[in-house]
């Protein structure tokens, strides 16, 4: 070999190296440029959300429609979407936050989840929108969940309550009625297990699913004792909170839940209900499309699904119209976005459009007020919407209420409680310790 090809090869290697490092450079430069406004008034907005076409088909379509329309109405704006699945979304949000590269507009959860981001000065307040163009548009109590120290940092787009869905066919087979009291509910569970049926579908690998059951029991027994304990104005050693934990274990002992629930994800648990292998399923109203609008679910199955409210307890402290639920996700504007004004305009537009079309097109309940008189809606949807309007109280999901570290302890403890790895006393003790730790 003579030297020439070698020299050429070397040059090539060098060029490649420079090119590769140049790539990463231009990429980070490009970010500033991409989400900034160019000299010709062109604006690119980055929008990160969690409705992939695969798992949230209805929502994904809705987002795309809104973006398309926005771009037609605002020809100088281009919206770049990044879509991730729930768990990945949360991780990516944290990593982008650490390097201060949040998208201009993104999705966040309320309360405890939001707090570290606000403290880190990453989200911009949206109070101007709330007191301006969007005033009076939201259902009372929804935006408050996104407020920290008097300022609101995101606008909710969903509102959820959690009913117990049930399979009318299975109930009819054993002559059962939707229970109104807890004793009746226990009787339903017993009748079903005696006949070899699985009463309740649950996938507790995800843990917040089991948390719903605990939250309802705590609410029915102790009113707002759980909320107070979480906020620090009460204590976890409240007898009602211990009793609720004991009640969970009683249900486990009765074989109320499908087998192996602690090793199954929510999707796997859900499929027990969707395949009619379990009679009941406690879940948020975000599941409604599956029982109403989702074209992939057979109508025959949709017709079998009814719901009832979590039953009351005789010695309990709350009425049947108090729900576990609250606003789901909301939209934030990044504090260091170079096009904050444009981003806020888009958020306003998005919230309004979502409010109008999410009912009819996606079958989810928006956080903005809806006029349902004009549209033809599935009965199940209308019924739940009415329930929402009559709600006497709405308890925000515990893992969202708590700060991340405490929420983690809560979720771990829920799984341990359902798996009978802790006693009810240890369960509340560990919660108290996590809340006391603060951070």
């Amino acid at each position, binding site marked *: 070999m003579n030297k020439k090809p070698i020299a050429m090869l070397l040059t090539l290697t060098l060029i490649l190296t420079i090119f590769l490092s140049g790539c990463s450079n231009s990429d980070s430069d490009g970010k500033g440029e991409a989400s900034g406004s160019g000299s010709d008034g062109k604006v690119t907005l980055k929008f990160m959300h969690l409705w992939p076409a695969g798992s949230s088909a209805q929502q994904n379509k809705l987002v795309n429609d809104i973006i398309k329309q926005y771009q037609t109405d605002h020809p100088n704006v281009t919206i770049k979407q990044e879509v991730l699945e729930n768990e990945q979304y949360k991780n990516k949000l944290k990593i982008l936050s650490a390097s201060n590269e949040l998208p201009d507009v993104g999705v966040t959860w309320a309360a405890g989840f939001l707090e570290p981001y606000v403290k880190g000065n990453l989200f911009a307040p949206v109070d101007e929108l709330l007191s301006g163009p969007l005033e009076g548009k939201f259902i009372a109590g929804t935006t408050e969940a996104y407020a920290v120290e008097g300022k609101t940092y995101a606008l909710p787009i969903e509102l959820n309550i959690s009913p117990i869905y049930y399979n009318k066919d299975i109930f009819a087979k054993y002559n059962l009625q939707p229970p109104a009291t807890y004793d009746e509910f226990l009787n339903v569970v017993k009748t079903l297990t005696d006949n070899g049926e699985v009463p309740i579908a649950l996938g507790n690998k995800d843990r917040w699913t089991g948390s719903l059951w605990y939250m309802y029991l705590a609410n029915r027994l102790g009113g707002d004792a759980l909320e107070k304990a979480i906020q620090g104005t009460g204590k976890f050693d409240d007898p009602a909170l211990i009793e609720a934990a004991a009640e969970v274990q009683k249900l486990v002992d009765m074989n109320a839940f499908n*087998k192996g629930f602690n090793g199954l994800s929510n999707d796997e648990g859900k499929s027990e209900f969707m395949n009619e292998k379990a009679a009941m399923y406690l879940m948020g109203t975000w599941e409604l499309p599956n029982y109403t609008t989702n074209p992939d679910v057979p109508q025959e199955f949709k017709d079998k699904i009814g719901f009832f409210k979590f039953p009351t307890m005789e010695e309990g402290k709350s009425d049947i119209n108090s729900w576990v639920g609250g606003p789901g996700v909301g939209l934030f504007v990044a504090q260091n976005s170079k096009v904050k004004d444009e981003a806020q305009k888009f958020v306003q537009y998005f919230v309004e459009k979502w409010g109008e079309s999410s009912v009819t097109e996606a079958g989810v309940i928006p956080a903005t007020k809806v006029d349902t008189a004009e549209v033809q809606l599935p009965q199940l949807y209308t019924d739940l919407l009415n329930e929402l309007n009559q709600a006497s109280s709405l308890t925000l999901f515990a893992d969202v209420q708590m700060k991340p*570290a405490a929420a983690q302890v809560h979720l771990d403890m829920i799984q341990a409680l359902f*798996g009978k790895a802790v006693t009810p006393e240890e369960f509340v003790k560990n919660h108290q310790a996590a809340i006391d730790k603060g951070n």
Partner: protein
Amino acid sequence: MDKVMSNRLVAALYVLPALLLLVVLIYIPIVLTGYYGLMQWDGIGAMTFIGLENYTRLLQDGTFWQSAYHTFLLALFSALSLIGYLMIALVLSGKIKGANLFRKIYLIPMLLSSVAIAQLWLKIYHPSNGVLNTFLEAIGIANPPAWLAEPSLVLYALFVPILWQYAGFYILIYYAALKNIPESLVEAARIDGASPWQIAFRIKLPLITEVIKVTIVLAVVGSLKYFDLIYVMTDGGPNGSSEVMASYMYHQAFRGFDFGYGSAVGFFLLVICLVVTWLLRKATASKDTIQYS
């Protein structure tokens, strides 16, 4: 060619790009991880220097030691399973019918991604309609366990797919090493009247000891940092009974918003890996290597 390579500048130019990438992508993050381990940091806000507090907390953290014990068990099982793989490779390298087919069968799990394997085994282990429990019920076991929900079983239930996943890799390595042994040596032994057992244990195994040592290091260190299948299949649950060190690190940093502590766990894991590698090399070091050329 030799002339070009003897030019120091040219040699440096060749080495440089890879070295740069290695430093930027591996060594700098390692140093940073150790540095973050000294901080109280939620990953978003400001960092507070807290010295070795995270590391002392680590030493007293029962959950961490529990996950370290799980990791140790995995490493132990991986190392022990090597014996089985070696036996299979010995059989396959002999002149048996269908050896080629078996080799392919063992290798197939390696071609699947971890997530695909996890999904496959989730179906197998499904408590009510999984393949395993359906089979167990069919042969008359009335109430088979829910494998991934039973704290006492879940870890071992996870070991099966993990070991299955890597079986082909080690069998292939052993097979290649065994095939490298000159036929003349085996032939000579056979003429001298050595039994197949003697050939295997007195001739073949001693000749591939170097390869065996490498696989032990690979298996043990690989198990120490094992993460993916466990993350997808159980997420460390139920109640931490399948948590390993790497998943614990992930949960602390990304779920609990405690990047400082998560980094400390990560750095500790690195130190353990280095120590174990060093110990294994020390333990398996031999003064005279056997050569057959």
